[in-house]
Structure formats: structure tokens, C-alpha cells
């Protein structure tokens, strides 16, 4: 059972962070685990919403460096395990913890493009 995870993106009322556990990825930086994670990402139909390569579709891109619910390892784990509003299914019931961590590892292994906020059509 994963502990509650604190999001650093939140404002802490009174400047005091709530008590929370931490989660660390046991496969962090493991290239084989990232490869496994890519296969699990497809096998669990994650690409059905997030697109091939996790580039975004009905669901958001997971490789653009921007996050709705926080981009820390533990936050991404939580999003997969418990799901999120607006349609992200909770996979904690059918995926082993290791499988979720491998998906996190796969996403982490993707190159994040430089964040260019400007889309330009004229020279």
C-alpha cells in the first residue's frame, strides 16, 4: 500500500507542508526496466489515451515536461495507481507495484524537448 504523497506543486497553508510519506522508484535509471515499461504502457492500453510514445491524445502528453498532477516519481506513481479525475483509470488493482514503477521509469527515460512556449507561423 503506497503512502500518501505530497505534491511540491501545491501551496502549503501557513507555509507548513502536510505530513506525508515518500515514494522512491526502485528502477530509477534502469534501462531494461524502461523497456519493460514501454511494453506495459502498450499492453495496458495507456497509449489508447496518451498516444503512441506518450505524446498525448485524449489524455495529455506525458513526455512534454509539463504535468497536471505533478511530475515527481511518486506523483506519477499515484496517478497510475489511484487514477485521476476526468477519466484516468486506477490501475492499482490490476498492475503490480513493480509494473507501475516500470511505466514511471519508461516515461522518465523519454527525452523532454526544450519547452518552447511560442508557436510561430510568420518569419
Amino acid at each position, binding site marked *: 500500500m503506497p503512502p500518501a504523497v505530497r505534491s511540491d506543486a501545491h501551496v502549503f497553508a501557513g507555509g507548513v507542508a502536510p505530513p506525508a510519506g515518500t515514494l522512491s522508484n526502485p528502477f530509477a535509471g534502469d534501462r531494461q526496466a524502461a523497456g519493460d515499461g514501454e511494453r506495459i504502457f502498450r499492453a495496458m492500453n495507456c497509449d489508447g489515451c496518451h498516444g503512441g510514445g506518450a505524446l498525448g*491524445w*485524449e489524455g495529455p502528453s506525458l513526455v*512534454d515536461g509539463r504535468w497536471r498532477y505533478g511530475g515527481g516519481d511518486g506523483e506519477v506513481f499515484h496517478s497510475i495507481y489511484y487514477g485521476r479525475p476526468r477519466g484516468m*483509470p486506477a490501475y492499482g488493482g490490476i498492475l503490480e507495484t513493480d509494473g507501475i514503477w516500470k511505466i514511471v521509469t519508461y516515461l522518465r527515460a523519454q527525452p523532454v524537448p526544450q519547452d518552447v512556449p511560442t508557436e510561430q507561423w510568420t518569419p
Partner: protein
Amino acid sequence: MTWQPSTPRAIFSSLDAGVFMRPCRILLLLSLPWAGAQGQGRDDGQWTMPGKNYASTRYSTLTAITAANVARLRPVWSFSTGVLGGHEGQPLVVDGTMYVVTPFPNVLYAFDLAQEGYPLKWKYRPDVSATSVGIACCDAINRGAFYTGGKIVYNLLDGHTVAVDAVTGKELWKTQIADMTRGETTPMAPFVVKDRVIVGPSGGEFGIHGWAKALDLATGRLIWTAYNAGPDSAVLAGAAFKPFYDKGPELALKTWEGDAWQTGGVPVWGWLSYDPELDLLYFGTGNAAPYNAEQRPGDNKWASSVLARRPEDGALVWAYQFTPHENWDYDANAEMILVDLTIQGRLRKTLVHFDKNGFAYTLDRVTGEVLVAEPFTTVTWAKRVDRASGRPVVDTTRLTGASRGNVRDICPSLEGGKTPVAPAAYSPRTGLFYVATNNLCMDFEASAAAHIAGTPYIGASTPYHAGPGGHMGAFIAWDARVGRKVWEIREPYPVWSGSVATAGDVVFYGTLDGWFKAADARSGKVLWKFKVGSGVVGCPITYRGPDGKQYVAIYAGIGGDWFLLSGDVRSDDPADVRPPADFAPNLARHTSQGGIVWIFGL
């Protein structure tokens, strides 16, 4: 419906004359919405159901706006729905009130057209589950409402149908019809025949077991459920079932391998029609699931088909499958337009349908016989439709499947030669159909898919490219008697808007880059256009206002598949900054998301 898993390259890969008389509600109850086989007959200047009439002609006999004066059309009113997203479907106008259903969260607005500025009479804000946003395959859209007997009936995205009192806005009943945990959502517009409210689910990308249901108009109680695949007992194929081409029992079971029909998709998310003389309800079914067709050998009946059912008990009377063993996501949910046409010298009761597969079909709506089937856009997956068997002659090099690798240059793309989202119109004055079309082709790389309830069940990557000519869409006029294109207006982007035809010989449609246009119904000359603030994926209507004048209304609000395909048209989510689709890199230069109701008049 439509889904395109991305590769890194792909996503970024009668009574018309005279002054308006406010009809009292008794008159409304007495007036039959059926407008005759040709879409003519009684027309009270209102717009009470999605397709204007039971024949779904989207034809109005109003004559004030004509080809001669439409250039003077001007905006008279606009309203922000407060929702960004694909504004599909159309408003209704009944008894001096305009009704607008928004995309999720499915707010229903009632505007008082008799007051200056059209203030709201009321708005209805249902409790809709946000989970539905992610279970809907392709944006959280809604295709509109149906008015009958003092009720506005429509579907909430999360699998509920509601009936709302048209005068007070009070909820009369709310019935759960679909199950999101199975991947079912409900963006389609209900269709009411007598006291039956006919509804169906989306979920062709989630491996649902597709169905149509009838609810009691008075109470919302479920009356019948008819599945689109499976045993005859579930499909309601009994003694009355006499398809023109297929023979024998259990057709919708034997044409699947094993229990593939249980997760075979076959949704109902499009438009319905009804012929009161034949007492037949017509609707199309969607794609078979998953997209990797090798996981479901067989014809997969009745995916990608038209079904003719009795509204009373749902009994299947005939069925015709446009695309047997559907390989390309060619849903057949597009409208079935019921008109009587003279084919080879003989007047026939016909059903005209523009399929995603690129063929326009003129069927005998009594029997399901194919009378005419000709391509209306570039088609490479099939050479022709064989009249003797009713089956397409497939180019086997364009068949897809996980073992076939990347199959290139399939036309149309899975957006369809015409999207079912954009219903055509028919003018009995010109004898022509007015059709929004796409000129897109695709490559199709299938892969094995696992069915996990509540998650997508797809298995394909399908990047698009423009078809011959380079333009990605056209608005065309079609002669369904012979299967011939009469004129076309080429558009740079796919045309994703419905259309309306009028007795003033004007047709209206919108474009993805945000133009609303009027064209001469006979020549195809564009006579007027106006930039409406967002791309158009909705359907125009025309009506007579309380002041007796003719108006035209349209939604602006790009979305649906274009929410997915052109992620850079959105600006409301700082966490979602996708680059443009590679095949349409400039669309976001001309539009962004919106949600605006426009009314135009002279």
C-alpha cells in the same frame, strides 16, 4: 468512432408563407414532425429534432433568405456557452425558444427569442461524472437534443438520458442507460418515435457490446434493448428479419469467431431516421473492435451496417453491412436520409447514406437492396460495390492486420470520406444532397490489443496525409439517383460541419478554420461567409423567429477529433502544449477552441 494512436511523427503525428404564429403547445402536440418523403409538407418554421424531420433531410421550406439576398446576411446575436470543446450537433427552436446543449458538462440553455437580446428563460445544469471525459474516445462532445410533447430529451456524456420540461426547465426523469466501466459513453442525440426514446452508446474504441435501447417517453423506463451483435435473441432478429443479401439464422453470431462479438464494439453514436408509413426506424452502427481486425475474423455483423427496426419492440426487419470485416475504422453511424427518388425510371422509396468508407449508397429502404453505390471521394480500399452481392470488391493489398505491417495509402482515412459527425442535407427543389467531405488518406499499422474493461481497445497507428489535390476537404453536391458529384467547393481543411438546405436555394456549412458559409444550391458558388471565432463542427439550422423573420444559427467550437488531431488549437491547459499535427500545421493559425452560438439574419 475515430481514434488515431500517434507515432512520434504522426501526432504532432405548407405553412411557410405569412407571418410567424406562436404555436400553442396543443398545436405542437398535434403537428406531426414527419415532413413527408421529400422533406416537404408541413413546416412550422421550427426546428424540433436533430435532422429537422423524421426523414433527416435538414431541409427547410423557409424562403426569406435566398441566393439573391444572402450576401446581406449579418450576425444578430451571439452567446458564449462557457464551455470550450467540440460543439457538435445543433440547437432546437420550439415555441419561440432556442434550446442549446453544451459539450460536457452538458448544460441545457433555453433562450427567449421573443425578447430583445434573447435572455435566458432558464438553464439546467445536470450532475455529470467527470470520468466520462476520459472514457469518451474523442473529446467530450454532445450531438444535441430532441423536442417532443413538451419535453427536451437528451443524453449526458456519463451514460444517462434526461427529460426536461421545455417550459420550466425542471428535470422530469433521468435514466441510466450506459455503463462507463465498460467503456460506454453517450454523446449521441436521442431520437423519439411515438412514445419511444431511442438511445445508443459510443465505445467502439473501448470494446463495448453495442446496442440500441428504447425508453418510455413519459417515465424514462427501459422498454427494450437490442444488441447489434450476438445471438438472434439479443439482436432481436426473429421471424420479421428478412435481410436482402444475407440468409440464415444467427448471422450476428456466426460472423464472429468465438466470443469476439462480446467485445466487438459496434456502437450507436450517430443520427436516426424514421419512416412512419413503413413504421421502420433506421440507424447506422459503428466500427468493429479492436482495430486490429485479425483478432476478430469474419464479417462481424452488424458492425458498419444500417439496421431497420420496429420502434415498438425493436424487432430487426432488415440489415445491410456496408463494410464486411471492417478493417479501417469505417463506422456507418452517418445519417440515413429518407427520400423517394426515381432510379432508372422507377420511383423508389430510398435511403441515402454517405459512409466513412467513401461510397455513397442509395438503398431501397423497404428491403435494404443496394440501388446505387458510387465513391464520392478518393477510395483505394475497394474497387467498387458489387450490385449482385451487395459487397465491396476489396483491394486485398489494402487489408490491414498485425501480421501485415504498415499498410500504406489507404483512402479514405479513418476520419471517413465523410464524417458521420457532419450530416448532409437534401433539397427536393434541386434533387441534390449537400455533403461535407474529407480528402484524407492514411497508413495503417495494426498491433495486438488486449481487452481491459474501461480502457481503450484499439491496436493501430494510423497517420494521415492529404489525398489527391492536396486540399483536405470539400463541400459537395451529390445526385443520389445516379451516384454523381454535381459540384464541389474545395476547402483547405477537412469539412466537419453539418449542412442545411433551404427553399431559398441556399445551403449553409462551416469550416474547421472558422468560416460559416452560404452557397448557391444550384451552382455551388459561395455567396457569403463570416468568421465565427472558432472552427465549426456543429450543424446549422434555420427557423422563423417570433418576429416572423428567417434566421440561421450555428455553433462555433472546434473539437471532436480535432481536439485530438490538432492539439495546438487549445489554450486552456498550460500542461498541454502539443505541437501541431504534421498534416495540418497551420490550423491553429486560424482558430482556437471556443463555444459560441451564432444567429444570423437579414
